[in-house]
């Protein structure tokens, strides 16, 4: 356990992007929102209060989305480089001269990509959203939009954060085989892990399309990217709202966006469990690669 902590710290020393990327994302979002304030948003007076309420919830929930997307790319680059990079600069000989098993070393990289990086992304989102809130309040201070600041309240904020961490936890399991694939490629690729990691699935997709006219491979890939959303979130729950009085207007808003959380369909889906099985196999291959290949 102590060793694992040191291994995680070591990953962080090497790949600062894990922290820097979410900070940059936050900065871009802040600057973007500020610019929106200066250039007053075109306000549509016909927009309904319900719509506004939904928008507010939507904004609060989706604020973390850019962080997660950026994190996906960071994790991709990180994993591709991890085992390949240490072979390329031969530092693997230094790391392997220490009493740390290859399984522990590979696990630390996997945990960094699947747990540490997305958690940092979600935490940065959670920490910076309160900074954006006042800007929104200024931007939408006019009468028609006055409902927005009200929606943007502490409880929505807290709920959104809970939702992000739920998504993070689900992502750990759903994206496990993807990360394991990139890790295995990084462990075995003779050179250029990017080509080895991305070309074979891409080529399979093209060949299948050309030869059989079907796109099973393509479906699998796109399912792995966003197929978990409808399985892990019951978005229909958003419609179940309560009657709330805001500014003398009655409107329907979801009582609680946490109603969206429903992991049961996900847990019942074969895709999750098959993915985990494939992922374990790929991790095993990655560990064997770390053990067997010391040169790039």
């Amino acid at each position: 356990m102590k060793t694992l902590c040191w291994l995680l710290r070591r990953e962080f020393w090497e790949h600062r992007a894990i922290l820097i990327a979410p900070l940059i994302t936050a900065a871009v979002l802040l600057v973007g929102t500020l610019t929106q304030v200066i250039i007053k948003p075109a306000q549509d007076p016909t927009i309904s209060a319900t719509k506004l309420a939904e928008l507010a919830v939507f904004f609060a929930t989706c604020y973390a989305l850019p962080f997660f997307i950026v994190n996906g790319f960071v994790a991709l680059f990180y994993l591709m480089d991890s085992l390949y990079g240490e072979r390329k600069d031969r530092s693997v000989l230094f790391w392997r001269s220490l009493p740390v098993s290859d399984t522990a070393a590979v696990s630390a990289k996997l945990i960094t990509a699947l747990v540490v990086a997305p958690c940092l992304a979600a935490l940065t989102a959670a920490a910076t959203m309160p900074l954006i809130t006042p800007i929104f309040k200024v931007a939408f201070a006019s009468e028609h939009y006055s409902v927005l600041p009200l929606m943007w309240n502490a409880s929505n904020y807290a709920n959104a954060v809970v939702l992000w961490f739920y998504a993070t936890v689900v992502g750990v399991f759903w994206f496990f085989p993807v990360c394991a694939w990139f890790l295995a490629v990084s462990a075995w690729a003779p050179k250029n892990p990017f080509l080895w990691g991305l070309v074979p699935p891409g080529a399979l997709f093209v060949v299948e399309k050309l030869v059989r006219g079907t796109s099973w491979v393509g479906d699998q890939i796109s399912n792995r990217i966003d197929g978990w959303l409808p399985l892990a979130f019951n978005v229909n729950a958003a419609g179940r709202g309560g009657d709330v009085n805001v500014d003398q207007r009655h409107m329907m808003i979801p009582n609680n966006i946490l109603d969206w959380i429903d992991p049961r369909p996900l847990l019942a889906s074969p895709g999750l469990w098959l993915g985990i099985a494939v992922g374990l196999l790929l991790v095993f291959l990655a560990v064997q690669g770390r053990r067997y290949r010391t040169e790039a």
Partner: protein
Amino acid sequence: MNPPNEIDGTSAAPVIEARGLVKTYGTTKALDQVDLSIGPGRIVGLIGPNGAGKTTALKAILGLAPYEGALRVLGLNPYTERARLMQEVCFIADVAVMPRWLKVRDAVDFVAGVHPRFNRARAEEFLAKTEIRSGARVKQLSKGMVTQLHLALVMAIDARLLVLDEPTLGLDIIYRKRFYDTLLNDYFVNEDSTEQPRTILVTTHQVEEIENILTDVIFIARGKIVLDLPMERISERFTQLVVGADRLNDALACGPIHKHETLGRHVLYFENADRKRLATLGELHTPGLADLFFAKLDGGAGL
């Protein structure tokens, strides 16, 4: 389960024991039926030309590559039990394998964190004697400093076996000298530890610079062990004869293993020869390792 041999404190058991070690790359045999036995407390030089199998042998010993044959290092199978083995074995593969992005301070922290036998104070004491700043990254250090850093880390580990593969490659002469001085004074002769004597296995091209520190020498060529001898037995087994042209034929009749000519005089090498007889022909010397290496590996060429 059999207890590993560290249990018996006398530790007459060899530190490295190989029987019929084979490693093939495609059709080339990098190691061909290698038998080795290295006892505790020895400083062994593994010497051979490029591609002779030195690094392959070390890789097998360090669990960095799979192999065929029987190999035990400190009673462990290095390939399957590498992580455990590395508690007792240190190695410097060669210079410049320290990751470039690593900070000196972090390197010390990390090794202290994962290595149960790492003595942090000792590493810091060693580093304090150098010009290495603890906030520097490896990429900011000179080649010599990187080796010093690596050495500082390795010296602070209370290991039973230290393996050095071309440790001074690319270093200038001052660093090389200092490297081996440090190795001997701070590592091999360590008063404050241990029950177990330390063993060092070193490979290098620069035969001369390790000649005086070795207790044993192993020559390897084309994947086979050509010579495996304690240093003190070299003088009884090998003889160098410097002879003038007039006595050359007499000397050749004694069956030298190698001959070369310098400045009109002939230098002949003999193995297990009758020294009394040779003494009547010319000057006798004990060959240096470099000469011996050349004589053994160049074989009968020149005869």
